[in-house]
């Protein structure tokens, strides 16, 4: 399968715009790009990654560095890492790239955004309200031009995009003033091609809600991207990863990162019945660690742990914790005389399970 990708992230929108400085958007983009470029991940060739972040990635990994060296040119020039891309630059790229990918028989196009976002509320029920990524030319008096709308991308891709398109937006969906015009469309004059089979759309938060960064005190990542990319890299069931599987994983995983706040992401496919496989093959990373602390239990007590694959292991209570490398999934612990305790093991950090 051949795949191309567009990755855009903005930490810094400049001062005086009412948009706060973000800590994790560029790091999220780097992580996503690493997965996209991995042969066992997205399988995107370095020359087919359109990558633009502001600021530039601080310490790109070898795969991303190779891609930056082979970076393709954007229609209006760029990437220019001294500034953030504008809404028009992004929309133009998406329109032209979709056509080009289609023409060259590319199977899949990934589109990833991280930064600030908004949600529109148009007058008519015929036009969808939509989640939007806010590009670098945002101005509080003229917001619409900087918006890149998820629904407009979907409509464009279904009209003239390649066979499969996966769109990910890690940004808030705070409500946009109803006085704002809708964001501009994408490729309105481009002829319909009817090549597209399905579009997957991953959104970080529910409508009108906030997408958080993590950790809470000194954030370094977007919670959604962190869990999502980890799932893309390592979550597998019989060697593959489906949209439904990833959505459940991300929904559960994100809660552990943003609690006590609530963030409800979604991943949907259009049309609904299209079977979109997100990844195939073995996990890319070693299993994350699972630490089970049984020190509060009577010494010598045997507790049965069941893994996601239903295999079991007996853990004996003692003063030292059990530290195990385990696949991600739901683990259950049976303490004699009690109902089983279920704990999600999400990763990539160590999961702490304390049984009292």
């Amino acid at each position, binding site marked *: 399968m051949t795949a191309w990708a567009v990755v855009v992230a903005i930490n810094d929108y400049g*001062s*005086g715009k*009412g948009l706060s400085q973000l800590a994790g958007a560029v790091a999220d983009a780097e992580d996503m790009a690493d997965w996209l470029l991995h042969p066992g991940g997205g399988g995107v060739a370095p020359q087919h990654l359109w990558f633009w972040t502001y600021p530039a990635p601080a310490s790109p990994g070898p795969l991303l560095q190779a891609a930056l060296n082979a970076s393709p040119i954007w229609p209006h020039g760029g990437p220019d890492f001294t500034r953030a891309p504008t809404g*028009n630059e992004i929309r133009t790229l998406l329109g032209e790239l979709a056509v080009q990918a289609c023409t060259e028989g590319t199977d899949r196009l990934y589109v990833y955004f991280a930064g600030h976002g908004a949600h529109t*509320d*148009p*007058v*008519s*029920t*015929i*036009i969808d*309200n939509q989640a939007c990524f806010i590009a670098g030319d945002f101005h*509080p*008096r*003229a917001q619409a*031009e900087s918006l890149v709308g998820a629904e407009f991308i979907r*409509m464009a891709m*279904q009209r003239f995009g390649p066979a499969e398109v996966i769109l990910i937006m890690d940004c808030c969906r*705070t*409500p946009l*003033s109803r*006085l704002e*015009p*809708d964001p*501009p*469309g994408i490729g*309105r*004059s481009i002829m319909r091609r009817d090549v597209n089979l399905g579009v997957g759309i991953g959104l970080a938060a*529910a*409508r*009108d*809600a906030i997408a958080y960064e993590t950790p809470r005190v000194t954030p370094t990542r977007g919670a959604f991207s962190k869990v999502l990319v980890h799932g893309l890299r390592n*979550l*597998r*069931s019989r060697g593959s990863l*489906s949209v*439904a*599987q*990833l959505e*459940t*994983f991300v*929904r*559960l995983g994100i809660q552990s990162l943003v609690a006590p*706040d*609530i*963030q*409800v992401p*979604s991943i949907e496919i259009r*049309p609904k019945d299209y079977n979109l496989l997100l990844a195939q093959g073995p996990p890319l990373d070693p299993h994350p660690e699972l630490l089970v602390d049984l020190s509060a239990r009577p010494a010598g007590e045997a507790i049965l742990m*069941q*893994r*996601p*694959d*239903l295999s079991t292991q007996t853990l004996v209570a003692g003063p030292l914790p059990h530290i195990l490398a385990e696949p991600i*999934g*739901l*683990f*259950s612990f049976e303490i004699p005389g009690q109902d*089983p305790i*279920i704990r999600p093991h999400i990763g990539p950090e160590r999961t702490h399970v304390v049984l009292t």
Partner: protein
Amino acid sequence: MSSSPSEQRVDLTVRGGPGVRISVTDASYAPVEEGTNSLRLLLRPGSYAVHFSLAGLAETQLVHLRAGDSPRTISRAQSLSSIEKSQASPTTAGAADSLAEWPTKLVQSAPIRRPLKIDRGLNLALGVLGADPGIIAAVSGSVAFVDGTATDSSSKVGIELSSEIESHFDGFKYFAATPGAAGLRFTAGSRRKLEQTVHIFRERRVFVLLRYAPFYEMERSGDHYRRRSRLGVDPTLTLVVSAPPDAQMPSDEVLNLGEALIHALRNPRRGLDPSLLEAVAATDCPYLRLYAATLAVVSLERNLKTPDVSLKDWLAGVGGMPWLMRMLSELVQPLAEQGSADAAIILNEARWHLAGHDRPLHLFAAPPMLDPCWCWLAAQSVSQPSLIPSRGLFLKAAKGREAAGPWLVWNHGRASRGPSLARISPEQLQSMVHQLLDVMKVREDAGSSGANSYDEVGKLSRSTQEILKAAWMLDELEGSNMQAESMAHLLGAPAAMLQDRLGQALKEITPLEMT
């Protein structure tokens, strides 16, 4: 011969409630089963994640099944609507500041389950829905009911305020209202004074539940802008439901379904789940019926206009057009007979879409409650201009209409005077729409980014910008067959106003073409 523990199956029943979608995944998060309302599964021992969702709201529960377990049942732990509120709860500093205004704006809240005796004749209850659905707060003084059919600002107040009971115990204010259209006036977070219709049905107690939410705006401070927030009524989140005339509160099911349907009407992309339609048909709340029927027709209309969604599949899923038409008639025909403008408009629209029937001329006493119904009425006014009279509330709604999610809300402070709107033939309108399109095409063909250029469009009036937006959208959906009716529908503008707006837009755009 007994089977090994791993081959045994445990009987698991999952109950989500009407319209709730359920998906079950195994311990590796791999999908096991999906369904709606409830599921009964025979599962291998192990851990499972059960995911409930309804119109974009969601909840996940984990369950562990052991070999030899007796049949298990799990249900939604809480109202899905409360999850929506939690996730949408503001957490930014500005919002937190504005929330500090609550104690001064609202009287004491209390759990709603107090055994109050409210006179049966007090058939209209007004309250503020809090973050927890079990809590109702009283509205501030800026909300009132007026005669919903009043023709000008000097009209008498249709509901005697002396009959109002302000209860500090259950948070509601009660009114005695005459069945028919009542006008709800309130001040929104934007500080605009808005008005909408609430239809009062006979033999029902109507509960109008407002929500306060932070309203954001950018404020200039020297060379910088800063975000300001203020708390006020968010009309998009208003919920109107009903209960029997002596009930103290609508049932949880009615509240949940109402919330889900209003949410779906705000975001109709997913269309209507047929099982939700059936669940609503089993209730006796007229408002749920109006919401569900509107959503069904909106879904139908979107399927007709948006080529990537299959009308055929959608209709096959609900049992075909005859089933849908029967269901819609069952839902709203009795309400149309009680004078509900929304119900009559929904039926007209459905019959026109589904069976190709002509839409009969109905004259209504007041504008409808729901915005999609107003838009259908506006479209119909292209061929039947008298449907929207150029006076009274209809004129106010036409001139001052504001988008407020599923509700038709208008700015009642906007002048209702002015020239009577002239009649225009559908052919004249059609010609103006195509003239507008031609101007745009010339500009696009000339190689400029044309009206897509923000710099140019940004200089145009807001009304013209809206018309251009609508024209682009319709050009995509209908191409050269674009109808004036569609334009009226999309803009929610009655025929006579559409003529006026198209004329002004053409005047503004044509000079641009010459440059």
